[in-house]
């Protein structure tokens, strides 16, 4: 215990924290959904601060394009599940912490059973569908969650469903048609670092009941101008009740094809968003093309798309060279170009 006290001595010294606060941190259980640019710094600071139980959830593996912003990972981790690679690092930082890793997506099947085990949920996700799912699950299980999102140089952060406060649906009632990820738009690596660190700050404030949490407030940060803004908003009781009265369901990110008569081949992985529903879309991930190329029509034009147009180009090269396709057209610019 003495060693533990020394480790946390600089924060225990703060009169608002003290030994009692440190014990509260030790008893706290925080789940981080998405171990990317936001989740990494949040997990790092919460581990260092001595939050007793940390859940790390991510279905994805470390990729070299993650390293400029997902600061828990090194080149040696490429190809490893993020949740496990993060745990390896964090255990070295603080062996007192009880980690739970989930190498899976959050979905309607597992969301309640995972989230109900924790006190606070941190949103490190990169898509609207999971953000709405976290929101609705937190309403059903009565948990506060700490939201953040980034776009290029700009970030948003808020605390939802805290002590009957507003939820994500009170701020943004309608899910947008298109998910635009860092993969497509680009992002400055430090931005999720700033937002993730703010999320960890809010989590510690909630655990210790310190200061004013960002409930009823959306904080917007712009890194190019360093301007910040706080927008206030209220809980919409009717919207909350609609969620509470229904079983959990995925928000459909409403997207439709511009042209319903063209045949499409989607070579993305099944989890990638958005996923327009249409009978003319054939879905074969790039990695399965060699085994499933026979499913692709050969006698009419097929438009091949992915998220940005790069993988679909590779797919066409493979199919033309290896299986003699001549009818494939690359959708330059990816999925967004074929949506209404």
């Amino acid at each position: 215990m003495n060693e533990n006290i020394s480790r946390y001595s600089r924060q225990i010294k703060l009169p608002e924290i003290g030994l009692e606060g440190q014990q509260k941190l030790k008893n706290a259980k925080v789940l981080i959904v998405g171990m990317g640019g936001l989740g990494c710094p949040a997990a790092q600071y919460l581990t260092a601060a001595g939050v007793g139980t940390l859940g790390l959830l991510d279905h994805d593996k470390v990729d070299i394009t993650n390293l400029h912003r997902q600061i828990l990972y090194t080149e040696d981790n490429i190809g490893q599940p993020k949740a496990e690679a993060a745990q390896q690092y964090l255990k070295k930082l603080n062996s007192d912490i009880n980690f739970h890793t989930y190498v899976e997506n959050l979905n309607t099947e597992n969301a309640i059973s995972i989230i109900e085990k924790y006190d606070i949920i941190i949103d490190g996700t990169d898509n609207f569908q999971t953000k709405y799912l976290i929101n609705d699950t937190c309403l059903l299980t009565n948990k506060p969650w700490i939201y953040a999102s980034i776009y290029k140089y700009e970030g948003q952060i808020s605390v939802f469903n805290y002590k009957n406060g507003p939820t994500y649906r009170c701020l943004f009632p309608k899910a947008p048609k298109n998910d635009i990820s860092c993969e497509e738009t680009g992002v400055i690596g430090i931005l999720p670092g700033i937002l993730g660190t703010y999320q960890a700050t809010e989590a510690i404030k909630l655990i210790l009941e310190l200061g004013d949490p960002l409930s009823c407030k959306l904080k917007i940060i712009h890194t190019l101008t360093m301007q910040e803004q706080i927008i206030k908003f209220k809980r919409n009781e009717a919207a909350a009740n609609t969620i509470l009265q229904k079983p959990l369901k995925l928000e459909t990110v409403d997207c439709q094809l511009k042209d319903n008569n063209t045949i499409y081949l989607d070579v993305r992985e099944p989890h990638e968003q958005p996923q327009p529903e249409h009978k003319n879309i054939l879905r074969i991930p790039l990695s399965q093309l060699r085994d499933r190329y026979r499913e692709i029509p050969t006698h009419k034009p097929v438009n091949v798309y992915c998220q940005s147009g790069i993988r679909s180009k590779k797919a066409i090269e493979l199919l033309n060279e290896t299986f003699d396709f001549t009818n494939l057209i690359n959708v330059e610019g990816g999925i967004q170009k074929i949506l209404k």
Partner: protein
Amino acid sequence: MSNSVTVKYFGAIAEQTGISGETLELTHDLQNASQIKAYCIHKYNLNDQETIQVAINQELNDQGTVKEGDEIALLPPFAGG
């Protein structure tokens, strides 16, 4: 500058407008938040119109009337992480 408001743009909206904000003269047809939103959507041909939220003087309010000197913000949701 008589009878005008400031409009601030965020996220992808600022990219589509090409500016972070501007001053708008309040006219007979520009008297409330939803009219200002509709005006900006039309002027800049903004995407995902129904998801854009409006704040008047740093408070979410898509119906309220506006008056001289108010600060209006157009906020898009985004989901990067």
